């Protein structure tokens, strides 16, 4: 208290205003445009002055877990990306899962590549929705590597290096062995 009393009053006001702005920004559920921040100041402030204060707050938070950013709709605090890994530990949401159709399609492409949509449909015994192939392409796990020289020139799908990376494999040979699986399946059915 005695310290702040010795500050020039202008500095005091500025420090107080910074605290008020910071509190408002930390509390607000939405980004605050400059126009909405102005009523927080007891004396009228120009945009320029307000922006200087905000830049000052930004600096205060430089090496912290959240940062003050200016977005199209105004200013707001948000977490820095590298904090995500810790925050995820707090709310362990179950990661989304791909449907059985997507996984089976991927398995067929992985083990039978290069394959056409028709090949996949024949093995699965049902039509393959375009959405399934798009999902896998968008994820960067499959790609079209050519077309088969048959009527309609169907596209040939193969898996990508990215899939191997994401599965932490070096080559496709490291995929679970089909013969092993067939044995297991026979055991399972037999028992």
């Amino acid at each position: 208290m005695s310290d702040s009393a010795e500050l020039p009053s202008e500095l005091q006001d500025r420090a107080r205003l910074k605290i008020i702005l910071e509190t408002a920004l930390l509390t607000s559920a939405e980004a605050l445009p400059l126009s909405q921040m102005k009523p927080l100041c007891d004396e009228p402030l120009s945009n320029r002055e307000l922006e200087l204060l905000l830049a000052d707050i930004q600096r205060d938070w430089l090496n912290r877990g959240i940062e003050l950013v200016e977005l199209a709709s105004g200013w707001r605090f948000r977490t820095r990306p590298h904090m995500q890994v810790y925050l995820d530990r707090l709310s362990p949401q179950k990661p989304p899962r791909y449907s059985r159709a997507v996984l089976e399609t991927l398995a067929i492409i992985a083990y039978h590549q290069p394959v056409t949509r028709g090949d996949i449909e024949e093995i699965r015994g049902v039509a393959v929705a375009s959405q399934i192939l798009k999902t896998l392409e968008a994820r960067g796990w499959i790609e079209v590597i050519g077309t088969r020289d048959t009527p309609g020139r169907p596209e040939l799908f193969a898996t990508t290096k990215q899939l191997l990376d994401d599965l932490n494999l070096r080559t496709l040979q490291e995929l679970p062995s089909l013969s092993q699986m067939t044995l297991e399946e026979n055991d399972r059915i037999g028992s």
Partner: protein
Amino acid sequence: MTEHPVIASIHGEPLKSLPQDLYIPPDALELVLDTFQGPLDLLLYLIRRHNLEVLDIPMAELTRQYLHYIELLQQHRLELAAEYLLMAAVLIEIKSRLLLPKPARVSDEEAEDPRAELMRRLQEYEQMKLAAQKLDQLPQAGRDFEFIQVMIEQKAARLPEITLEDLKLAWMNLLEKARIHTHHTVRREALSVREQMSHILRCLRGGEFVAFDTLFDPESGVQRLIVTFVAMLELAKEYLLEIQQSETFGSIYVRLSRTAE
């Protein structure tokens, strides 16, 4: 009411008019039941207004004021809640018991004051009424302060992850299905040939002729070389490749079959 100029007598002081704070203008009568939280609240009001002790209620005065109040309300045809009328009955009962001579048999213990139960209820209610006021005075989230919840910057919608186990299970499912739909069989393939087929197609994607030997990596070992060769034969069999050799023992060139481009 006109035959009773003295409305009430508080501690011997006659009251000639309704206390200001008790009077409610007729057009505001509908608010009455909202103003008081019930008969206990009204009784407390009457008692506390006149600085009376809850522990020593002058029953006669209290009952008279309460009944007068009820009468006033009824004059304006306000439907009184049953609780108010019940309380009136209770008050009259207590009052009449107080008027009756005490029973001759006097036990050692003091006969219970007929007011005791009412006093207990009034005290208990008053305590809760005060507690409600105190609770309301405590700083309250959303009213007197806010909790902080800074937005968590979400990465692009989280994508599903898969594991080898997922792929394996998917494949086992297919095997089982294949068993049911016996009209086709799931062939077991030499995986490396398939992978190599994809690899070759990828190398040839430009559509240009590529030297045959550049598709083989001598460093990768004999097995890999054989697999690559088998893959190329497979591709040729599926008409995916065009293989050309302009002269015997000359260089062999490979490109995607033109129709396949």
